[in-house]
């Protein structure tokens, strides 16, 4: 009995002497102070190169909220931000449907915006990296939802055109912590390019809808 007790006590000391296991496999909770630390560390340990400037490490209200809430902020946080972002999208006047053939080339191209890209090159939309679109393109990613028959399902109404254009311009207007890059807001794509991609998604003649 005494021996058992001593053995137990000894085990307790040993356990106390070991550090607690690290939280492997978990997603850490991020407090405001953690976020400040992460921004400071990234500014210290990353440097501007080529077109990739240090301004890219600044967090706007959307990215602050997403980082603080593990990409799942409460509705009272996300809703006002989404509304504000939607108002900030500069929708062009008139039809938002450009040329689907040019849009197809943009959807295929994944170039642009890295520090090894020269300034003023024609950026692509990188769409196929994450989305299925035309049935002819078999090399597509699956991080994003399939956009096969996107326009065939939704039609080409003004509302759908605006949603499609807006989603490409700034995806965070519709889902604050969407994993999709803000193609217009980040100046990856310009107005005409986003119109061309909108046509690629919506035009009945586009292979996306065939």
């Amino acid at each position: 009995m005494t021996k058992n007790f001593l053995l137990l006590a000894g085990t307790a000391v040993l356990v106390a002497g070991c550090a607690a296991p690290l939280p492997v496999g978990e997603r850490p909770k991020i407090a405001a102070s953690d976020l400040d630390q992460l921004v400071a560390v990234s500014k210290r340990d990353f440097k501007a190169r080529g077109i990739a400037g240090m301004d890219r490490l600044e967090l706007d209200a959307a990215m602050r909220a997403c980082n603080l809430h593990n990409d799942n902020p409460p509705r009272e946080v996300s809703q006002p931000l989404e509304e504000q972002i939607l108002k900030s999208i500069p929708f062009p006047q008139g039809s938002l449907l450009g040329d689907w053939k040019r849009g197809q080339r943009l959807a295929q191209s994944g170039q642009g915006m890295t520090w090894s890209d020269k300034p003023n090159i024609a950026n692509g939309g990188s769409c196929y990296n994450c989305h299925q679109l035309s049935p002819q393109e078999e090399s597509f990613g699956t991080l994003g939802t399939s956009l096969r028959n996107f326009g065939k399902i939704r039609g080409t109404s003004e509302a759908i055109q605006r949603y499609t254009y807006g989603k490409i311009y700034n995806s965070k207007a519709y889902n604050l912590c969407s994993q999709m890059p803000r193609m217009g807001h980040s100046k990856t794509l310009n107005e005409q390019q986003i119109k061309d991609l909108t046509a690629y998604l919506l035009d009945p003649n586009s292979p996306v809808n065939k």
Partner: protein
Amino acid sequence: MLKTLMGGAALALAAALPLHAQVDIRKETQRWQQMIAEGSPAELFEIEGEALWKKKQGPKNVSLEGCDLGQGPGVVKAAYAQLPKYFADADRVMDLETRLLHCMTTLQSRSPQDATQRLYGNADRPSEMELLSVYIAGQSRGVPMAPGTRHVKEREAFELGQKLFFHRAGAWDFSCSSCHGEADKRIRMQYLPVMSQPEGVRKIVATWPSYLVRNAQVKTMQWRIWDCYRQMRWPEPVFGSEATVAITQYLTVTGQGEPYAGPGTKR
């Protein structure tokens, strides 16, 4: 009868599918990986790395053979598998590449400019860092990955790495987790391992540094992280910085226990 029926159904299904649909990309990739792993060219680079380890260089004209990689000066056996770890002489956690840089600038008294002039090489201009890394890592074959987890700074590095892994920033709002956070997802045809989980990352940390077929070079874990951040559209991570070591520490601790099976061969 049932067997025949099922066989017939399978045949009919196969006939209905276009040719490409019958190829399981993942199986094919695995088969290819196995094929190239059996005769990895990384070993040729290890020989060059060993020569560089023993080459007298710098103002003091000494080799790196006196470098302490964590198991005592000059001990290369099983050293890589026990990194990253805390080094009292530098008062920080270091991965292999960071420690090599430290030895170049202290033991060999080389200037930081000299030591960092070719961190990433190509076929025409190989990198001393990459060759050294592949030699040292090769001396850990079969040794279970066991990075330091007891020192407070080792624990802080893990925690910082874990937070950085999920930290979204850059022109496209990406974190490491944007691509390596969900199972069975691809970019184009490339399946992405879930690096935040042991089962997703064990094989990864046990095969870097690696020979990259597309570069015809051996590449380090520092390079892998650097090229990820490039594609994430962030600014450039500083080689050997606390942030990069923290990410390696996080990934290695998450994948610890896997016997080191590199230097590997990758696409």
